């Protein structure tokens, strides 16, 4: 980890892919408990159908948490300065979200990354950006 933190990051450097899941119904339920988001549309198929869906689907914040893992694995637990995502498609049961990031700028000890989560068929589910300190754990 130390070697990674001291690596000289450059524009074009890629982190990942981190392939998460499969996102089972158990995963979705565990994340409801772990994250505190108990929205029934993710847990109860009848509620999902009432909302016009065929089945329950994963919380968008679960995929954002996977992206968070990608970032902290690469830069350390306390390096993030900002983290933004847009949710572009739902994540169905049994999905294996693939998370990647690419460095788009390095300036004053801060790297900026573009982030993507895709399903195995290439459908993007999250698109985002992050700014991370390259000084690792110091804030």
């Amino acid at each position, binding site marked *: *980890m130390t070697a990674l933190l001291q690596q000289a990051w450059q524009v074009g450097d890629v982190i990942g892919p981190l392939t*998460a*899941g499969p996102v089972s119904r158990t*995963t979705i339920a*565990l*994340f409801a*408990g*772990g*994250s*505190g*988001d*108990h*929205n*029934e*549309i993710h847990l109860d198929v009848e*509620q999902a159908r*009432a*909302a*016009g869906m065929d089945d329950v689907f994963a919380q*968008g*914040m*679960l995929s*954002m*948490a*996977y992206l*968070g*893992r990608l*970032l*902290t*694995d690469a830069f350390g*637990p*306390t390096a*993030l*300065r*900002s*983290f*933004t*995502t*847009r*949710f572009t498609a739902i994540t169905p049961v049994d999905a294996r979200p693939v998370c990647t990031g690419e460095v788009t700028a390095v300036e004053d000890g801060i790297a900026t990354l573009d982030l993507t989560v895709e399903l195995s068929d290439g459908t993007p589910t999250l698109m985002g950006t992050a700014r991370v300190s390259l000084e690792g*754990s110091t*804030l």
Partner: protein
Amino acid sequence: MITSATGSASAPVTATIDRSQLRLFAKATGQTDPTWTDVTAAQAAGHTDLPVPPTFLFGIELQQEEPFGWLTQHGVDMSAVLHGTQSFDYVTPVFAGDTVTASSSITDVQVKKGGALTMVERRTDITRDAETVARLTSVIVVRSAA
């Protein structure tokens, strides 16, 4: 009406972040690095306690009786709601054992696509000992009944 809800503030929510909750979050997100679950490993990595993952603070304000009351009180049907965007700005790191307060308010409401979609922006400040540790911004998309 949600369209006139700009400025509406929610009652602050205060919670102490406990290790077992962070362990469940790690399990649910496939995080196997012991830095996030084992205090000895976290301290060996230079942390005072288990670090809080980047998106964990989103859940602080959900620790209340009616976590979606800020939408339903304005007549929003939760089955018509999607999470549009989510942002975090980090000021200082947070660890297990920290007591934090989430203070939220609706900061913007935009009606789009001829009224088919309403975008509700809400900001949440997370403070610890009255100092801001993180700022969250959510955009929630409400679909209108056809």
